[in-house]
């Protein structure tokens, strides 16, 4: 009778040890693989951002030279109007939308589900932007790039993020 009780005690003890180890292991896994909210650097996004900043838009102020996207960032911050009567921010939004739409695939089954394009002027988000894509706010993994430009209007930080 006494022998049976001891065997059962040992079994219970063993099961408790196994359960304890399993719980500790799961907690460790949970901490290791918890996704954080930081944005991972993407080489492709970085190249894309560098390339689109050079793009020549259809906004001009003197009918001679046309503004590049990098120039439009500052123009938008100053609220400038293009010669065509369009707001430089609207031209910027439209141009960026076209560039992203042609450069990336956000259809069902693709790696990325949407994007965000933000511009900060002297630390403040320009209200007319950001340009959103599909499925934002992003609940998946974010990958992107940012650039800092010093212009006559101040320090501009432009961020391009892809939502996975």
């Amino acid at each position, binding site marked *: 009778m006494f022998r049976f009780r001891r*065997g059962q005690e*040992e079994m219970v003890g*063993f099961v408790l040890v*196994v359960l304890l*180890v*399993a719980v500790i*292991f799961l907690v460790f*896994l949970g901490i290791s*693989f918890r996704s954080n909210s930081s944005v991972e650097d*993407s*080489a*492709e996004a*970085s*190249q*894309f951002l*560098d*390339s*689109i900043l*050079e*793009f*020549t838009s259809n906004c001009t102020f003197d009918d*001679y*030279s*046309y503004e*590049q996207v990098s120039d439009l960032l500052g123009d938008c911050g100053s609220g400038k109007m293009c010669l065509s009567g369009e707001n430089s921010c609207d031209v910027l939004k439209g141009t960026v939308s*076209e*560039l992203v739409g*042609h*450069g990336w695939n956000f259809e069902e089954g693709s790696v990325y589900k949407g994007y965000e394009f933000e511009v900060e002027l002297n630390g403040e988000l320009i209200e007319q932007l950001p340009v959103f894509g599909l499925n934002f706010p992003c609940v998946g993994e974010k990958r992107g790039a940012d650039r800092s430009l010093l212009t006559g209007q101040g320090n501009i930080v432009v961020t391009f993020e892809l939502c996975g």
Partner: protein
Amino acid sequence: MTTLFRSVSYSKGQMKIQQMAFVLVGLMIFFGVAALFYFTIFSSGINEQAALLREREAQELVKRLAGSPEFIFSSGSDCSACVDFDKAIVLKESSEYQNFWGLNYLMIEKVYPSGEGECTRSNYPDCKTITLVSKTGELSTRTAFVALARWDEGLGYFRYELGRIHVSV
């Protein structure tokens, strides 16, 4: 009686050894399953890192190409992401450059504004692609975004457009 006592002692020892063996086997199976689980998750992280390294490798390759004298755009502003589209169409007509870069495939694509078809002197710049190297066989291409710079006669200065460079080593 003594014999009986001795056989009881042996049975108890054997029981203890058997218990220990079962415990050890159970522990080994448990940690084996846990390790399998861990490495399955760990190896998926390795796949992501491999993809990231491939991306960076493509970026470095493109940077080298874009910075080479054959493609570098030095006429306008300082632009590291720029490729001279006008130079590319001239290079296309030169057969000496087929083996110059040591690549199996090299193509420059105009992404936006988009055009149609392969570029020739007659349809440039309203075209889509300039294929500089195209060798047969299975090719796995890497791509990278670039800014395509070209002289715009109508504007009277350089126009920058969005492009992509496709490379296969």
